[in-house]
């Protein structure tokens, strides 16, 4: 196998690994964003209930 051929395969393998790590990062960030939104909604709801009780 020539060096050029080897480089293509190595670049493909490392490219796939990097792509998966980046996708994982963005999916994880999206899950955190959803949770933050849910927490915000819960805080608003708790405040509303507290206001109603007073």
């Amino acid at each position, binding site marked *: *196998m020539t*060096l050029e*051929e*080897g*480089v293509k*395969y*190595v670049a*493909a*393998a*490392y490219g*796939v*690994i990097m792509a*998966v790590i980046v996708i*994982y990062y963005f999916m*994880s960030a999206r*899950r*955190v964003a959803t*949770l933050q939104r*849910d*927490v915000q909604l*819960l805080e608003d*709801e*708790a405040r509303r*209930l507290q206001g109603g009780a007073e």
Partner: protein
Amino acid sequence: MKKLLSAPALFAAAGILLVVGVVLAFWYSPTDSSSMGFSQKILYYHAPIAEAALVAFGVAFVAAIAYLRTQDMKWDRLSFVSVRLGLLFSILVMITGMIWGKAAWGTWWAWEPRLTTFLLVCFLYAAYWVLRSVVDEEQRRATYAAVFAIIAFIDVPITFFATRFLPEGLHPVVIGPGGGGMEGSMAVSFAICMLGMTLLLAAMIRRDYEIELIKDRVSDLKTSLGG
């Protein structure tokens, strides 16, 4: 100590080690003189990813036993995120392995012991995923999943030792006595990548586990607030 083991600290340490490891692999370790040639550089991430996948399934196995003993849902969550990440790493191993197989052996796939048993691991843990999605009741789902994670783990040591007990396959032994026949500078780069990938897995498990616990807490709060 707690800060050192936090997800961001583990991600940072993993990132540094993986970058250092790959730089050493390309500029310090020699290119393999066998038929593999330059494509042998795939080894520095491929084998550590495989090891990390098996470690993730090991964590899932231990957490599954802990769940069955305690019935504490946090162990179910740990087992679940470990299987999910183990499966992700396994898919990466299959893809990078196929690329390397094409470069080194001239074929994308061979039905040899290591590849076949690893494929079986992927199918088993994909079935775990399906099992979780079809059982609605939480406690029952956790129990079934724990039992399944324990049974599925039987294939993990078989996969690891496949190349040792059945040496007629194409796949070489990488981790073994004397570094699996690896030259000194290659072994150093490889060990750094191995440590980096293990830390990356630990960081991902930690982060996903924390997210799952917060999700549970949010869900409980929503229920107690009436929707």
